[in-house]
């Protein structure tokens, strides 16, 4: 039984899971634990509101925002069963200095509609991080003031960190053939 959590609001509303099946929630969003670290899984619609809630709850700094392409991943185990996994994920790490706590957000992004609302208004520090995610994965951020490439040249084609983008390796003679690395990468 899923939604037994208190509604979103200020303060922690963490519900202990009953022995059967109820998933944990934090701030109204599904929560998992990854090696002792707290990870929440908002949907794209929940994401802006969640950020605002977290900002008010003391998570004043976005430490990191990056993308992950799960195209060739055998199977993610860290995502709750009720969350529909997509090809891309945007991972946001936040920190609460007062409580010395970290929180990670994992948002699923489908490849055919690779957009996410920008966190720039709440956290101006995400400006460069979102540009890098756009540059490397092609995920657009709505509301970003200047969504241009940041690491690659302006006229570069493609998004290098996607799994279907070749690494651009030039075969080198005298070395073992690239087959001694898993060639599928």
């Amino acid at each position, binding site marked *: 039984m899923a939604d037994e959590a208190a509604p979103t609001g200020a303060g922690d509303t963490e519900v202990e899971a009953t022995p059967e099946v109820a998933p944990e929630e934090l701030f109204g969003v599904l929560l998992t634990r990854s090696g002792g670290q707290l990870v929440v899984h908002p949907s794209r619609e929940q994401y802006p509101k969640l950020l605002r809630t977290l900002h008010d709850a003391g998570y004043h700094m976005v430490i990191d925002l990056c993308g992950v392409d799960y195209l060739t991943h055998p199977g993610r*185990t860290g995502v709750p069963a009720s969350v529909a996994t997509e090809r891309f994920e945007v991972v946001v790490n936040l920190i609460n200095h007062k409580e010395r706590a970290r929180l990670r957000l994992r948002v699923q992004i489908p490849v055919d509609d690779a957009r996410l609302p920008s966190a720039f208004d709440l956290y101006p*520090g995400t400006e460069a*991080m979102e540009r890098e995610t756009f540059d490397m994965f092609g995920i657009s951020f709505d509301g970003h003031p200047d969504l241009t490439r940041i*690491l690659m040249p*302006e*006229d570069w084609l493609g998004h290098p960190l996607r799994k279907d983008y070749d*690494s651009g390796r030039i075969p080198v003679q005298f070395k073992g053939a690239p087959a001694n690395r898993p060639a599928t990468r």
Partner: protein
Amino acid sequence: MTTTHEAPANLAQTSEGAQELTSRDVIAAGERLRELGAVLRLSESEALDAELDAVPDEETMIINMGPQHPSTHGVLRLMLELQGETVLRCKPIIGYLHTGMERTGEDLTYLQGPTNVTRMDYAAPLFTELAFSLTVEKLLDIEVPERAIWIRMLMTEMNRISSHLLFMATNGMDLGAVSMMLYGWREREEALRFLQEVTGLRMNHNYIRPGGVAADLPDGWRDSILRLLDMLPQRLDEYDVLMTNQPIWRERLQGIGAISAEECLALGVTGPMLRSTGYDWDLRRDMPYLAFDKIDFDVVVGSFGDCFDRFAIRLAEIRESMKIVRQCLENMPKGDYRIQDKKVTPPPRARIDESMEALIHHFKIFTEGFKVPEGEAYVAIESPRGELGCYIVSDGSPNPYRMHVRAPSFVNLQTLPHLMHGNLVADAVAIISSVDPILGEVDR
């Protein structure tokens, strides 16, 4: 944009189009505010914008600094809109050192990972190796022996000393105290000599690996450190005489490039920049990793958030690191320098001749690599530039599925428009220098 002559023919080849600073009327309001450094001062941003509008286009000039310029901070390109000598808008353009390290990390095994990440922050390479190794160890769910932990602490604090000495040297040179460059390098050579004695290399050591460290401390390491610790304090006092108490130095740095704590938090800034504003946050003390909770040291905090505070903090941090090194020296436990788990760390070389199993493990670890269970983890440490984190997604294979390094300089560079606004061009160099970016980790 005012040009009185034709643009040179090769401008097209080096132009980065939309990434550059363009004239004010064609950019969006949000981006304009950002380049003005006004995005944080919500109440003042309209006033600043109006101020900018009041300056007609003919009076301003957009100039380009870099990516090749004599400041020693690497290939950072800055476009500035100047009115006379005053900076109105600023836009840093990065990517000139983009190496695809995160992509390369996916092709290398976990044991080879440190060779790749160490070249990101090349002034303090052991820190990135440490962040990577801690993340892998979290994914593997293993615990490193005590001695390895203390060796890691010792080596990273020595690296912090050498990185801050590099900062002293380049900061001095950027501001005109060219002799500081020579003094800084002189001291740094001593620190590098110690690092070479232990790791075998002066830079990019590949010493801190998942499971522990690559080799134990050599005989005589205590004497080497004591020699260094005896020599450094009076040299640091020389720097105080040369720089800290000198009126020209103070005039050039005090009040320049000031930032407040709220602005730092909003921009994600960490490290000496954050501490210079008076905000007391240091991961070593507040979210301890390794054995920093067993060590006694002070966290240096400034008050005005200007360039002088950042310089003074880094100078004081050298002294604090020396304190930490001395405590590591006294408390170094005996034991293994790496975990004895055969699946993770290679066996000692001598055993390879004796045991078939050891030979096979060695072979497997160095060719195929050790497998890491599926999962994801983020671990952060306090590097000389701020919070350095490593986020790894693993998929059960010997190579990381996704490796992302949260580089402090990348985030700290976002403060540049904010710091530069209203200052003179000559201060621009002082400001970049006080942010202390290392472009290798900015661009990765």
